[in-house]
């Protein structure tokens, strides 16, 4: 919970990791990729305030104590949601697995929700293991990384028929929140690597599932917004928006927030700090303090209200994940609000 100016905010960090990218965990022969991956993440941290930058060795592998401190002791987070990314091709024990997240979550009851993942290329055995993980950790969501390398394959698409089988299984098991990584990626080589059309496709086909597009499809927010206006079950994960732009590029942070509010509206935006790329403390405090500057260039966009910030920082995610919110942290008169948008003529 975060309190400022007498207002109390229930905070859900909907995008968090407990990873091990230390050299001991690098697969022999794949060191270049394992190293490149974590250094790429580390460069993203450089977009946050200088005093929050970590040395690379701490960033490669951090302790449980540090994570609990950064999220819950000083970071204002009430509930954190783990979003795993396996990357077993490069990391011996995986980069950030459901099992590692789950073990930590079980040591700290009530703090975490554990999402798992699936990979349609793993076939029937993968399906069985997926179901076991869902039951073992009580998963209500999955994080999908369609650019993951698997043997000779450099990724997969939500449009693949095998993916539909897994999504049907999600519906059956009550795994209703599907987080899809749409951000800087490395595959497919010869197509638009950030194409969100596969999300569009499955959002239409699976009306019972919620699709949260992580990093709002950056660098293609325009494709994402356009798609999201047509699909009522598509949401925006704000990890790179807040962590990557609010401090480093405040003008574009304002514009992007303005656009997201305009096209998607206040009920569809989901905060995530993306720990350990960025710590939640400065993001939560900064977002509560932030508002739309009174700039001529931004005159299309109204300022955010306190209630809108409460929704974005936690209440929207709490709704999707059925998280209990203490009475005093709920909105007095919650209402769902349609985005401004521009109607089709």
């Amino acid at each position: 919970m975060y309190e400022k100016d007498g207002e109390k905010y229930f905070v859900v960090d909907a995008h968090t990791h407990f990873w091990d990218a230390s050299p001991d965990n690098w697969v022999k022969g794949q060191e270049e990729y394992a190293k490149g991956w974590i250094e790429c993440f580390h460069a993203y941290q450089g977009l946050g305030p200088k005093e929050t930058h970590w040395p690379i060795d701490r960033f490669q592998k951090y302790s449980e104590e540090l994570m609990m401190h950064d999220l819950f002791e000083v970071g204002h987070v009430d509930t954190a949601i783990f979003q795993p990314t396996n990357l077993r091709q490069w990391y011996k024990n995986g980069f950030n697995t459901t099992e590692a997240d789950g073990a930590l979550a079980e040591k700290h009851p009530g703090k975490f929700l554990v999402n798992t993942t699936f990979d349609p290329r793993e076939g029937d055995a993968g399906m069985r293991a997926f179901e076991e993980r869902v039951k073992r950790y009580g998963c209500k969501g999955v994080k999908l990384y369609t650019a993951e390398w698997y043997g000779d394959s450099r990724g997969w698409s939500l449009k693949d028929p095998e993916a539909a089988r897994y999504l049907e299984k999600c519906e059956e098991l009550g795994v209703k929140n599907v987080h899809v990584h749409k951000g800087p990626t490395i595959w497919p080589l010869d197509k638009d690597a950030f194409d969100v059309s596969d999300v569009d496709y499955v959002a239409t086909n699976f009306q019972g599932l919620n699709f949260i597009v992580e990093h709002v499809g950056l660098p293609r927010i325009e494709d994402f917004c356009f798609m999201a206006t047509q699909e009522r079950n598509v949401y925006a994960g704000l990890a790179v928006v807040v962590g990557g732009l609010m401090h480093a590029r405040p003008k574009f942070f304002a514009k992007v927030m303005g656009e997201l509010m305009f096209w998607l509206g206040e009920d569809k935006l989901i905060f995530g700090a993306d720990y350990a790329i960025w710590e939640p403390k400065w993001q939560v405090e900064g977002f509560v303090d932030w508002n739309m500057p009174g700039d001529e260039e931004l005159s299309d966009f109204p300022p955010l209200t306190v209630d809108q910030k409460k929704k974005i920082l936690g209440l929207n995610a709490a709704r999707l994940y059925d998280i209990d919110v203490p009475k005093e942290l709920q909105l007095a008169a919650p209402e769902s609000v349609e985005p401004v948008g521009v109607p089709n003529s």
Partner: protein
Amino acid sequence: MTALQDTGVHAGRAAVWSALGTVRDPELDEPLTELGFVARCEVSEAGHAVIRLRLPTYFCAPNFAFLMVADAYDAVAGVPGLTGLDIRLDDHFASDVINRGVAARQGFVASFEGEAVDELDTLRGDFVRKAVLAGTDRVCRTLAGTGLDPASLTLGQVPPGPDLERLRARRRELGLPAEDGDPLLLDPATGAAVAPADAKRHLAFARLTRTSMEANSGVCRGMLRARYSLTSDEEGTG
């Protein structure tokens, strides 16, 4: 930047730098030289050019990277008087494949044999169409307060300036109408004029597209700065 004296015998660094300035990141629609993507640019007395390119992360998509390295090769190879050209992308997971492919003047598919099935013209076209939309927003912003309605204007009725010329250039790249009598608002996919009833939505989408490209450019510049410990001067952004 200290340009070598152009002796007339060989091309100087200034000429090579200027050629690199015509090469854009296809997605950001900005020159490599301004983005800070040129790490090294030297031309020897004998006219041998050595160019090193760099990108914001190790995992920048290889298709974009390939386009930029190939375009840089073509642009610099066209500078008169050069006796040799050594151009390479550094610090990228696909550097070797890209550098070999470009040096051998192979296409993208041949360079990434088994992993790619299409050349990059479609991708490039998508980016230029986005650049047209973003450019439309830039031009229309300058009309604020003039009382002019973008929906009814031709290009010739827009006050002249660099934003308008840039928009015309991008439209010409796509073979879209770009003369004075042509409409300011058109669908970049079809070239058809935007009907007045659709103008509001078209302009909102143009604004969104520009925001996306510029925010992305901001992230890339920030990442490059963090990766190479640059100051903002060294980014090449001035």
